[in-house]
């Protein structure tokens, strides 16, 4: 029975009491073999209680750490509990559980797989003009810094193998737009990264857009942090003895 690779779905959740129960039951129905951990990022609603009553593992942070901190906690949970693969999945109902097998399959020859809304082959997904422009800018930056093309740098639907998990459990960036920094970190440290096309539902509710000035600040911050990272020496990928 231990033949299968142990995989866990990590769901970071902040005040998602409305959508979380549906997301969890959909996941359970579509992927009954996968374990689930919900990282409650200091929610003030019933997110943690609902997740607990759904019977999944819950890690409740004492206060809000932001998506990066919640993810790092999830990665540590996965590593501590001996999981060999993990999938990051949103609690807001944006993601489709049927994308998970696609991601896991691509994980066979990559350390990090990103589910992209914009790769051709999947349905189309529209974003606002400001956000679209900002995403395009990040893409160009990444292309200059790494010579690679990525179509969806802010995707929250990703899969990680054991080595990537162990790296991110210690080093996952904690500030806003963390997914871009994480992607650059992975590439810079020599991990193999691929994108696969996925379809996503438009966001049901909640805040989709940041205030523009704040967004500008964060893009500047990421730009600075990205360019300093390139000059740093990467931490080597740990050699793993396959048990």
């Amino acid at each position, binding site marked *: 029975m231990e033949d299968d690779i142990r995989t866990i779905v990590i769901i970071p959740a902040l005040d998602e009491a409305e959508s979380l129960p549906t997301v969890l039951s959909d996941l359970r129905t579509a992927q009954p073999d996968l374990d689930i951990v919900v990282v409650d990022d200091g929610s003030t609603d019933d997110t943690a209680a609902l997740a607990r009553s759904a019977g999944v*593992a819950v890690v409740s942070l004492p206060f809000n750490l932001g998506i990066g901190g919640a993810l790092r906690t999830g990665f540590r949970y996965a590593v501590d509990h001996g999981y060999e693969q993990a999938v990051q999945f949103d609690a807001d109902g944006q993601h489709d559980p049927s994308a998970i097998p696609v991601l896991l399959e691509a994980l066979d020859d990559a350390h990090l797989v990103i589910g992209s809304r914009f790769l051709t082959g999947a349905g189309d997904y529209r974003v606002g003009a400001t956000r679209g422009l900002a995403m395009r800018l990040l893409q160009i930056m990444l292309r200059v810094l790494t010579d690679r093309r990525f179509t969806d740098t802010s995707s929250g639907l990703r899969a990680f193998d054991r080595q990537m998990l162990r790296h991110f459990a210690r080093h996952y960036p904690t500030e806003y737009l963390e997914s871009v920094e994480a992607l650059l970190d992975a590439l810079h440290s020599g991990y193999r990264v691929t994108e696969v096309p996925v379809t996503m539902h438009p966001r049901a509710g909640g805040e989709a857009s940041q205030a523009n000035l704040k967004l500008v600040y964060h893009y500047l911050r990421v730009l600075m942090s990205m360019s300093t990272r390139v000059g740093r020496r990467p931490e080597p990928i740990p050699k793993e003895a396959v048990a």
Partner: protein
Amino acid sequence: MSPVALLLAIEPGGVSERAHLLLVIVVIGSFLFTVAGVRRARLRSRYSLLWLSIVCALVPLAAFPRLLDWAAERLGVAYPPALLLLLSVAVLFLFSVHLSWEVSRADDRIRRLAEELALLRTDLDETRRASSDTGGGTDAPA
């Protein structure tokens, strides 16, 4: 009269008796304030030492304002108060950069502690549940 001309019109070095008294009072006040902070252990000792040495450096300056004129002349600074301002800005700048660094580090540590705490609590809950399942719930009042 422009502000610059006004500044230049003040005779450098000469300090009136009243201004001198004010200077001495301010420096002594700062000294006592810092010492009080150190004594009540509100400050970590390395900061106490830093602030104390800064205040101590001000004492001779307050007692003998001509020292500043002398130092400025030696360094080729035409307007002595500018030297004082330059040095204060440099010290305060370095110290605030240092504090930013300390705050970043403290923030990172707090975050990691919060993560650790959450993970430990989850482990504890799981362990309790497992032991109450096998032990018939005798040791874990719900």
